[in-house]
């Protein structure tokens, strides 16, 4: 008997929780960014597991699009991080609490 669907869902839930806890407890913007990437990956694992479970390709197409969105998010997010660092000389989110750059 191979691994069941519930195992993959459990792994995905654990990874998502670790990512969410990281977003809450981290103060470095780059570390928070990486925790968000981890949460996206946990959801991707759910998509692929269900796609394999139902023998339907739609889930994997969703994963493909999620990866594209993650790449766009990485480009824009890191641009924002560089802009914040250039203006404030810090990466601490507590110091970047107003919208004005």
């Amino acid at each position, binding site marked *: *008997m191979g691994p069941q669907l519930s*195992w993959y869902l459990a792994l995905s839930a654990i*990874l998502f929780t*670790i990512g969410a806890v990281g977003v809450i407890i981290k103060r470095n913007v780059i570390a928070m960014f990486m925790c968000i990437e981890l949460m996206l990956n946990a959801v991707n694992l759910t998509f692929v597991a269900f796609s*394999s479970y139902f023998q339907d390709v739609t889930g*994997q197409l969703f994963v493909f699009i999620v990866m594209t969105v993650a*790449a766009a998010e990485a480009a824009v997010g890191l641009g924002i991080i560089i802009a914040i660092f250039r203006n404030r000389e810090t990466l601490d989110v507590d110091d970047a609490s107003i919208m004005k750059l």
Partner: protein
Amino acid sequence: MSTLLFIVFAGMAIGCAIAMVSQTNPLYSAISLIGVFISLASIYVTLAAPFIAAVQVIVYAGAIMVLVIFVIMLLNVEHAEPRRRRLKFLVPLAVGMAGILLAETAFILYSVQSTPDRLAGNISNVGLTRSIGVGLFTGYLLPFEVTSVLLLMAIVGAMSLARRSTVLSSNARVVPGVQVLAMDIVNPRAVGDLRPVQTETTAEAAHLLGVDFQTDQNQPE
């Protein structure tokens, strides 16, 4: 055999994720996150999704993490300084919210026990590149095209965000001849540094200040 592979790679993924959150150095966090991506790619292979596994390694572990590590090294961040007094009250709040999340995870782990077992019984071509390509260019053509627009917007946004955004006042003019600017005008961080910086022309001064210099005479005075 597949159970053993799942346990190995799931353990690697969880261990690397915990290591990522517990590190204080962002560079070590990034390397742990690459470990998570690689183990997830291995799990995708065991789930009969080789195309997604390859894209995971190429896009996530390759492109995105290289970008993240590049930014970490570019900004050269030191270790986190101790939290200031004003925000101490947020610590119990964060602990409480993390507890709620863990409880939700436990609930999910409890409730998914009852799903029927039908995973990957027969050989199929669902995860292959061909079936993904067919799906992407027939039924999901519109999301695919919208994604290209999204990527274009990301390119433009990243470029406009990462540019130097110093703006000279529209009244600023540099008279032809030898100009002497103090250092703290040229570089806002060098406050009080009055060493002179000499320029000859307006274009040169604009270059020193890091702004675009328009040569056309039509701009409003």
